[in-house]
């Protein structure tokens, strides 16, 4: 658990860190890490109609930590395998190709890209949110007959700017030498994750619909998105539902039911009831996905 700092200290930290991030963004030369080769390839494979599961498992095998995580997830109670899963091929068969591709990508990004020390629990919270959004995105896409795989990818990557911004902040000079409080960092992540994510999306050449989602997934922004895949508006609602299911939302069920995005997606009360009923199963799925 992070200890919250008194308001004046937080203000001081913000005053010090905000200009740092602003300067980095204005300079346009963000020192962000490259996408690890494995993650990039996994992403390519998952969008490649010619890819098969053996190609994916070969890729995953290149990263031992990743392979271990995937086996752990496939064997977790949420996926309740009939017999223990011992090979990657078998894990892929059990979890599903696209689910696995997305998962492999996010696990590899989680563990490999951003070297962030401290705040492990909070960072896990971010990934929980991203994964729950991806899973909810799939269910929303199914309902409106939009592309399910794309919705998942948009969901798991829409917050990529947060670890990206954390990575930048971890290199910010600290006059006192002490590490920054999570309260301050959280405020800054909220403020900066979209511009940082936008740069990351471009640098990593993420699919266009994902880039659009990163930029416009918020309630007052989704109307800017033009992709017919509707990944942005799907992710906007998925994000709210994910927060509710992970009990991190400042909104209650009723407030979510009345969000403009619900009307945008033309969801009637009965559609929302059906989606809200999935909270428990999404939560269970997320738990076994997080490292």
């Amino acid at each position: 658990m992070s200890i919250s700092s008194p308001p004046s200290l937080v203000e001081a930290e913000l005053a010090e860190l905000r200009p740092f991030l602003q300067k980095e963004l204005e300079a346009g030369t963000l020192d962000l890490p490259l996408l690890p080769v494995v993650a990039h390839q996994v992403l390519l494979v998952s969008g490649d109609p010619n890819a098969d599961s053996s190609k994916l498992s070969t890729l995953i095998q290149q990263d031992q930590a990743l392979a271990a995580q995937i086996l752990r997830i496939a064997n977790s109670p949420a996926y309740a395998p009939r017999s223990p899963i011992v090979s990657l091929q078998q894990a892929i068969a059990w979890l599903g190709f696209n689910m696995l591709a997305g998962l492999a990508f996010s696990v590899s990004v989680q563990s490999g890209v951003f070297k962030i020390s401290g705040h492990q629990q909070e960072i896990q919270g971010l990934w929980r949110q991203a994964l729950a959004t991806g899973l909810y995105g799939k269910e929303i896409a199914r309902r409106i007959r939009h592309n399910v795989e794309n919705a998942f990818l948009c969901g798991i990557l829409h917050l990529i700017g947060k670890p990206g911004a954390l990575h930048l902040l971890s290199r910010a000079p600290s006059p006192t030498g002490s590490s920054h409080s999570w309260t301050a960092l959280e405020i800054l992540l909220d403020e900066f994750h979209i511009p940082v994510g936008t740069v990351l999306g471009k640098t990593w050449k993420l699919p266009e619909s994902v880039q659009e989602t990163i930029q416009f997934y918020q309630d007052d922004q989704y109307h800017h998105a033009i992709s017919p895949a509707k990944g942005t508006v799907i992710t906007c609602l998925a994000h709210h539902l994910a927060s509710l299911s992970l009990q991190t939302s400042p909104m209650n069920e009723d407030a979510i039911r009345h969000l403009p995005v619900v009307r945008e997606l033309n969801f009637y009360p009965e559609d929302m009831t059906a989606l809200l009923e999935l909270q428990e199963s999404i939560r269970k799925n997320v738990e076994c996905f997080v490292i």
Partner: protein
Amino acid sequence: MKPSSSFDVLVIGSGPAGQKAAIQGAKAGKRVGLVEQNREVGGACVYQGTIPSKTLRESALQMVRFLQATDVFEFRMRDDVKITSLMTRLHHVVRAHGEFMKEQLTRNGITPLHGRAKFRSDHEVDIHHVDGTCTTASAPLIIIAAGSRPRIPDHVAIDHEHILDSDSILSLVYLPKSLTVLGGGVIASEYASMFALLGVQVTMIDSADRPLKFLDQELTDQFSLAFEQTGGRYRGLQKIQHVQWDGYSHVTTTLDNGETVNSEKMLVALGRVANIEYLNISAAGLEPTSRGLIAVNDHCQTSVPHIYAVGDVIGPPSLASCSMEQGRRAVCHALGLDPGVAPEHIPMGIYTIPEMSSVGLSEQDAIGKFGSALVGRAKFYEIARGQISGMTNGLLKMVADPDGKELLGVHIVGEGATELIHIGQMGLLHHIQVDRFIENIFNFPTLAEAYRVAALDIAKQRSRR
């Protein structure tokens, strides 16, 4: 108390049937309310049916022609352009068509009512809005045009990700390597031939011995041939035991004989069901038929005289073309306006590759009715225009009475069939004799010349008698 509004005519559903009903009511000076549950007007026709499937087909054809031209003109297309550009064009066309529809309704002063309609009584309809509120609308005349949706068979778990229906197939963002199509009807055949043309390995599985069983066999034989030439397979006389997504790369279809067919994706196109359960038609004094449809008389009037039902909700032929006319005629009948002569010969257009179209009696029907029939044939490759365009698989079949004089039906397979058929339709409507096609001059070179060639074929058989 709930807010309520009253109209002269209340239409439920804004697909082709509802739209034309509403416009006819407005043109007759009535106050019309149009209830639609979706945000956009246009119905299945605009968003999941006719318009997207035909746009996708047209774009696929253009793309294949373009790809073929790359050899001639020595340029290359990026491999990934394929499906994304097809889909982008699709969305443009759908959006433009939707906007046009909306504008047409506004121009006619029709009041749009966004919500789900549910009968409260035979004159009142509750409209449940997306925000959870409910209003009531009443009218002395109500038209049900709620349309249809894909049927979900009990034994196939459609997940809209790997196992798709004709709505979710439009969400594909890349071309699968292989596709199994369950069904052998119009939608199944149209999508099967389109994907096969785009290089997808397509297997159609159905219980009938050939696809589109209701059509003239000579036409479907040509279709099957073209389908096989693009790598497609038709597995007829099959029963499905079960269908399962194996979890990572394939949908496995197990047939009754134990055989399995694997494919990356599956399209389930096993018919459609009417959208009536939400309507609560019993509150209006109506009961669904055993097939889940709304029963109507020749004027599309239900058993409750001031309630009409039009379009897919009353069952076959379930075509946008017929639905529109039913909507218009129903309102004319209800308002005591002359709807004009009832359409006698409804053409059927099937946008497979190649296209097929049919009007009037088939050869089998004509034999059933008259004891025998004379049939004239014109193959497109024998016609100058067909040769110029490199058409190898077109056929026009003209069915005449046993004396070879009276035109009874026309059946065409080949590109342009759905346009060409209208000449035959007009001929049938005006009881044109077969010889009129011989005596008159057609533009040269055109495919319409096939009518002359087929008529000559009939005349030749006549003279041999």
